[in-house]
C-alpha cells in the first residue's frame, strides 16, 4: 500500500472534485439531468474511493458507520417532514404550493427540500451498504 503513490495522490486530487460535482448534480437537477438520487450516489462514491485507496480504517474516522446510518434515517425524515410542514400550513401532504406566497415559489422550495432528503438518504444508505460488505472478514470454511 505504501508505494502506490499515483493512486494516493490521484485520489486526493479527485475526491474534492467528485464532492463538488455531486453538489452540482444536486442543485442543477432542476435545469438539466440530475437530482437527489444521482447526487447521493456520486457523493457516496467519493467515500468509497477514499476507502478503496486509503483503507476502511481511515474512512471510518472521517465518517463513522453510525453517522451513515443516521443519514439514511434523516433523509427519509426530511422528506416526510416536508410533507407534514405543508400539512401544518394548510395544504395537503406534499402539496408544496403553500410554502410561499407564490405557489410556483413554494413548489421550488418543496422540491429543494425533498431532493435534499433523497440526497441524504441515498448517500447514507450507499455508504452504509459499502461499510457492511467491506467491514466483514472472510470466514474460511
Amino acid at each position, binding site marked *: 500500500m505504501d508505494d502506490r503513490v499515483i493512486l494516493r495522490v490521484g485520489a486526493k486530487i479527485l475526491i474534492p472534485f467528485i464532492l463538488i460535482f455531486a453538489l452540482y448534480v444536486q442543485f442543477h437537477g432542476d*435545469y*438539466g*439531468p440530475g*437530482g437527489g*438520487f444521482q447526487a447521493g*450516489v456520486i457523493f457516496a462514491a467519493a467515500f468509497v474511493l477514499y476507502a478503496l485507496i486509503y483503507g476502511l480504517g481511515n474512512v471510518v474516522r472521517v465518517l463513522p458507520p453510525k453517522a451513515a446510518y443516521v443519514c439514511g434515517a434523516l433523509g427519509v425524515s426530511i422528506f416526510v417532514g416536508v410533507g407534514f410542514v405543508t400539512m401544518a400550513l394548510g395544504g395537503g401532504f406534499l402539496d408544496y404550493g403553500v410554502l410561499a406566497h407564490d405557489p410556483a415559489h413554494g413548489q421550488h422550495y418543496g422540491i429543494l427540500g425533498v431532493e435534499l432528503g433523497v440526497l441524504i438518504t*441515498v448517500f447514507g*444508505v*450507499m455508504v452504509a*451498504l459499502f461499510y*457492511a*460488505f467491506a467491514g*466483514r472478514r472472510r*470466514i474460511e*470454511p
Partner: protein
Amino acid sequence: MSGMLGMVNYWAVIVLMMVGFYTLIARGNLVKKLIGLNIFQTAVIMMYVSFGKITGATAPILIQSGDHGGGGAEHVVYSNPIPHVLMLTAIVVGVATLSVGLSLVVRINEAYGTVDEDEINRKDNGL
C-alpha cells in the same frame, strides 16, 4: 417506423431479457444468479424507456423560448417523461435489493461454506 421495423427494438430488449433469465435459472452459483437478475432488470428498464420514446423527439427538458435565438420552442416534441421517472427510482431500488440479496449470499456462504446451489441442496438433504 411501421410494421416489422417498429418491433425490432422490443425484440432486441426481449433477447437481453432472456439472456438475464437464462443466467438466473441455468447457473448454480448464487452470485451469478444475482448478476443475471441485474441484467434482466436492466432489460426491463430498457423496455419501459422504449415505451416512452417518440421518434424525432428530444429529452424532456423544456427548451426556454429565449434559449435558441427565439422561436421554435413551441414546436419541439418531448419524449414521455413518466417512464423515465419511474425507472430512475427503480434503478436505485434495484441496487438496494441487490445488496440485500448479496448479503443473504454472504450469510449462506458462512453457514454452508459454499454458494453453489447444488452443493447447498446436497448438504441440506444429506444431513
